[in-house]
């Protein structure tokens, strides 16, 4: 149903444009997805795509520093950008009358970015501040270390935040050369959703983008080495964080892989909400964790299927790990129930229904499916795919990806454990089990 309302066109310079008209609110969202991110960086320039994302707001041939954001704010809109391993995305949402203004500004920074040395230095300070904001969070810092070990030797090992020494030494020339190589119409997808005139939309886009020169055929990234797992299957980090945590990671397929949807379903069954298996068994029944959950971190070329739990200091982390694994094992041996499958379908349908109320959310979904999964239609057709999946396939996927020989674990141990807390936890548990015996 939704598919037939989506229109697309690829311009001769390679720019693909995907549009969906939505008239419920007088707003329009415009997102430009560049198919480049930290995956395409090499040693010495780790963090350059994120640096360029910042510079995107520091002026282009027709617009001064910060003018892009200021013009959008001045009409009540908002804009932002983000960088991941695979993409750099510029996002804009404005009242519908200002669509052309956004197109003009996006087009201008596609090939007219100004890399002024003085502004470049100021922005370097801002980016280093952002780096420290992440590194001052003990959980985020430990997770980045874990991920570095997990994707060892793979271009995904260092994320978009980059390396501090590289951020300090990057030059304007490094940025200019990276910009020329990757930021061009043939390496980008423009997504427009909202209240616009469908008849003239491609003409409007063409007015600003059709003269842009393609970047040429050199769009291959670094060699795609398979994920080489660290030799240390169990990592322990002492952190300035008062809650012990455990993270389990398994190598997962890329988001465009045919197994990705099945793994997503399994993750929802095991960790989605209070009726999930982790919550019911690990948190409620066994009471070994205060909270437990999971997420599939699916990237364009590889992924990580993760599970995590937060617990009290009196609980042995090995016990927590065993409990999480027992639930994973149950799925590998017995699959999921028909009722759980129905839950996944309904949850997907509900989240789809509510996503459709927001132009920005739809833009995000279409851009992600097109640039990461390989085709925007995959987002639209996801519900149909879910209906077709069979139990055997799910069990097979669980067995292949949740392979314990490839599992990696990170235990975050609080640096200071208050002995009273520890003893308090033991007494509380003793008291609780005695109460249980009496009843």
């Amino acid at each position, binding site marked *: 149903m939704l598919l037939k309302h989506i229109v697309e066109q690829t311009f001769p310079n390679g720019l693909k444009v995907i549009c969906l008209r939505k008239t419920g*609110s007088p707003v329009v969202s415009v997102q430009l997805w560049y198919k480049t991110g930290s995956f395409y960086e090499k040693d010495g320039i780790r963090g350059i795509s994120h640096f360029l994302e910042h510079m995107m707001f520091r002026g282009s041939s027709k617009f001064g520093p910060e003018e892009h954001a200021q013009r959008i704010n001045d*009409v009540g809109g908002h804009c932002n950008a983000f960088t991941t391993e695979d993409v750099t995305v510029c996002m804009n949402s404005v009242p519908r009358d200002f669509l052309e203004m956004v197109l003009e500004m996006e087009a201008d920074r596609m090939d007219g970015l100004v890399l002024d040395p003085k502004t470049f230095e100021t922005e370097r300070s801002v980016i280093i501040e952002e780096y*420290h*904001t992440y*590194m001052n969070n003990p959980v985020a810092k430990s997770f980045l270390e874990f991920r570095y070990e997990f994707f060892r030797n793979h271009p995904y090992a260092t994320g978009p935040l980059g390396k501090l020494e590289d951020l300090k030494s990057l030059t304007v020339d490094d940025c200019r050369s990276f910009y020329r190589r990757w930021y061009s119409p043939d390496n980008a997808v423009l997504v427009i959703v909202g209240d616009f005139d469908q008849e003239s939309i491609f003409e409007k886009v063409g007015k600003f983008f059709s003269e842009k020169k393609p970047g040429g055929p050199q769009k291959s990234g670094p060699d795609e080495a398979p994920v080489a797992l660290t030799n240390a299957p169990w990592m322990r980090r002492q952190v300035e964080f008062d809650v012990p945590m455990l993270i389990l990671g398994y190598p997962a397929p890329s988001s465009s892989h045919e197994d990705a949807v099945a793994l997503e379903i399994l993750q929802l069954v095991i960790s989605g*909400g*209070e009726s999930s298996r982790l919550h019911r068994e690990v948190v409620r029944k066994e009471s070994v964790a205060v909270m437990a959950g999971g997420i599939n971190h699916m990237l364009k070329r590889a992924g990580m299927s993760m599970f995590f739990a937060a617990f009290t200091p009196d609980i042995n982390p090995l016990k927590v790990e065993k409990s999480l694994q027992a639930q994973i094992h149950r799925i590998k041996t017995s699959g999921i129930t028909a009722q759980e499958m129905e839950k996944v379908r309904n*949850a997907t*349908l509900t989240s789809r229904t*509510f996503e459709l109320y927001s132009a920005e959310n739809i833009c995000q979904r279409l851009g992600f499916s097109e640039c990461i999964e390989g085709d925007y239609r995959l987002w639209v057709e996801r519900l149909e795919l879910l209906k077709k999946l069979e139990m055997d396939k799910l069990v097979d996927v669980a067995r292949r990806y949740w392979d314990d020989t490839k599992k990696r674990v990170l235990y975050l141990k609080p640096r200071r454990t208050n002995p009273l807390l520890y003893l308090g936890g033991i007494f509380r548990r003793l008291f609780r089990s005695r109460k249980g015996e009496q009843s």
Partner: protein
Amino acid sequence: MDFHFQFPYTDEFLLQSGLRVILVPDKEQNGIVAVLQLPAGKFSDPPLYEGTSEICLELMQKGSGNLSSEEFSEKLEYTGASLFSDAGEEHTILGIRMLSSYMDELFAVFWDMVYRPKMDEKEFRRIQQEMITSVRAESSDPGILSNHHFYNALVGRQHPAGRYHTLDSLKRISLSDVNKFYKDHFLPANSILAIAGNFDPDIFKSRWLSLLEMWKPESEFLNGFAPAVNEFKSELRLVNKPDLTQATIVMGHCAPGELYQQRNELALANYILGAGNFSSRLMTRIRSMGGKTYGISSQVVSARYFGAFHISTTTQTPRVAEMLKSIDEILTEFCAEGIKEEELEKARRFAIGNMAFQLEGINSIAEKLLWLRFYGRPNSYIEKFDVLINKMTVEDINKAIRACFSPQKMITVVVGRKNEILPQLKSSDVLNFHFREKII
């Protein structure tokens, strides 16, 4: 700039219990959202028992009527529905998102949760433990720490805004305290229920009105509105966190509440100072020109009568004194010289244009209606918002700035490495000129 918005058709009525119901039919998608706004929140927590309202809200979502917690979550989640909640300061939000095809089945479960929650002992203990764990986690978060210290220094523990949940207060709370809170504060009087989405209001009324009426007040409504504070004082509080390489700063003072007559003038002023992202003076001068931070913003947070103005930022430890000085210069200049016509025009355009995003989708429309009714405002407040904003002058805004901002009397909280920050503060004129030293 003009703005043409008209609220969709709404069916609104007041029940005898005092519950206001607003029905907003909308056929755009097959979703329904029901949101209940209860007229009490964290400010109603009894002193020393901070966290009671949050536990109460969580516990309500763990079983209702004849359904155990497991049955309750299965019933909702297996049909794709999800609950959402927010423990605010003066009100509490409890809502459900669902597919319209499950409305008959799920609305009854949702309403059961509102007027006869299970309040199970075992679930209470679990939630209490969960919140204790969260508080432990929060102690590592400099953003949360700085906020708690800021409000504590601003109004003290005598005022509800100066109290927040702690390990001790959470451990002190018993199930009977939570039940008492529910009976005393979560009452139909002054509560507002908004239902928006794909349903027929007439069918809704014939099917559900009698059920809505079963929620009856068990005690008299006690409002939990925080009183205004007009006292301004100076204090600098340095909170030692030796593990941080970056300092977190919050500085500000008390401000008028939401019902203040010049509230919109204050909002426009604040947009120009620090809420307008890259268009604001703080962001332009401190981030874009100075590169001293990743982000800086100012906020005017307001309850009905009580409000607070504050500026928040982070910067690397060696730059703390420099940052405080820069903020002080910008704020002092802002208050002394006021704003320019060009800045006001941009702020007006933002305020008017942004309203379209605040009303995108049924969730947003339902929430906006709750906000309007809570402060006793009609729909025309939004529908004529452009007229209201466009008539404001530079002098109106500058008058509000002079009345509400006071750079000489600020509470400042810095969370970071004391041994590196304290010498900076002592050797700069920051402490001598504006602040009284108080280190804890």
